[in-house]
């Protein structure tokens, strides 16, 4: 995943202690990392805390990264570990509709068309609820490969498996979502 021009060079600089370079990487990757963790956990506050932790770990361990070209897969593997760790710690199924502190729903409320707001809010809630029911290995593959639009090869490196496995996992997640939304929503 290349989000910056001369990304490899910036990674090398950041690894050598250049704070400016590290901040560049942070600014470029914070949204994708946050997106992934948010979809894994379903809670904005948890995702914000976890994103901070991820980049703090990146800052401490970046010098151990041998190949700068693998920065994004390495970053997302840290993000995945953080998300899974938080999931196990919390041990809760997110009841998205009852989560009053979820600012995502508040953000959707700010859109201009009220009817559209309601529909989008409803879809967002249901979709996130369905996502949290998918087993973690399929969920990670779906979020990275479909929602974040990363290549299957990159996702395979992040999750430490083959491209064939990723194909299969994404398919299973898709099939599950189709089945669930077919009952609840007009998919």
């Amino acid at each position, binding site marked *: 995943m290349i989000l910056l021009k001369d990304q490899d060079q910036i990674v090398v600089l950041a690894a050598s202690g250049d704070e400016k370079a590290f901040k560049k990487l942070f600014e470029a990757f914070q949204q994708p990392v946050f997106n992934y963790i948010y979809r894994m956990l379903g809670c904005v506050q948890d995702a914000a805390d976890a994103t*901070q932790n991820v980049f703090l770990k990146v800052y401490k361990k970046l010098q151990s990264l041998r190949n700068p070209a693998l920065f994004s897969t390495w970053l997302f593997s840290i993000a995945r570990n953080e998300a899974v760790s938080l999931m196990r710690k919390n041990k809760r199924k997110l009841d998205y509709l009852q989560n009053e502190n979820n600012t995502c729903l508040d953000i959707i409320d700010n859109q201009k068309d009220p009817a559209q707001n309601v529909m989008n809010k409803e879809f967002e809630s249901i979709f996130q609820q369905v996502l949290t029911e998918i087993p973690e290995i399929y969920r990670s593959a779906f979020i990275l490969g479909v929602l974040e639009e990363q290549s299957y090869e990159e996702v395979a490196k992040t999750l430490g498996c083959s491209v064939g496995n990723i194909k299969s996992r994404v398919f299973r997640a898709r099939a599950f979502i189709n089945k669930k939304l077919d009952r609840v929503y007009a998919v």
Partner: protein
Amino acid sequence: MDCKKIKINISAMLDKELDEQEKQLTLSHIKICSYCRDFYEKSLHLQEVIAEKLYTPRVPNSVRTGLYRRLENQKRSFNLDDLWLWMTGNKWALRMELALVFGVAVLIGLNIRLPNFSGPADISQPPFSQNVDKYLEKSTKMLLELKNSEMDPSKLDYEKQLAKQLLVESKLVTQNLENNRTQIHRLVNELEPVLWDVANLNDPHALQIIQQTIDDRDYLLKLDFARKNIISQARAVK
């Protein structure tokens, strides 16, 4: 190709992860298989709905401010986690540390003593030269008395005893001077047979020979010179 594999291909095709050949095979199958076509249509519709309706929140500002604050705190404080991370994260640092631990263990095992850097000991005269000087002094005295003696050899018990004692001392002095090929060392070697003769003195004839030898070889002069040499060396060290 079975329907399960086709469905997996459909999923990959929607993510643009299928090569052209497989894509054509999949599309051909979809045309003739209603189950796979149904899956394809539902998956395609889901893709469109996600793109249109799914809203992902922006990263809260607290992430940036919180992270930068923690990085600042990180720079100020030094904790054991960082030390451990530095130690173990750096391969060469870890190898050096292991080598250092191994080296210290070997030194302890070999019980190697480090040199004493407290400085040279305070001496007025080097120990070996002190012993040599005493030896030479006693030798001088004894040979001088012997040279001037007119006594019966049977009455020279004291001198005989002294000679025996000096023979023992000469061994020690020789050991000290073993690696030192100085005049003193040669003199000590020369005196030994003379001292042995004195220690075993039995008849007046033998005494005359010893007295003659002391004169001929200038032992008294050599002894005096050697003693003065030692004293001057001791003063130079001081």
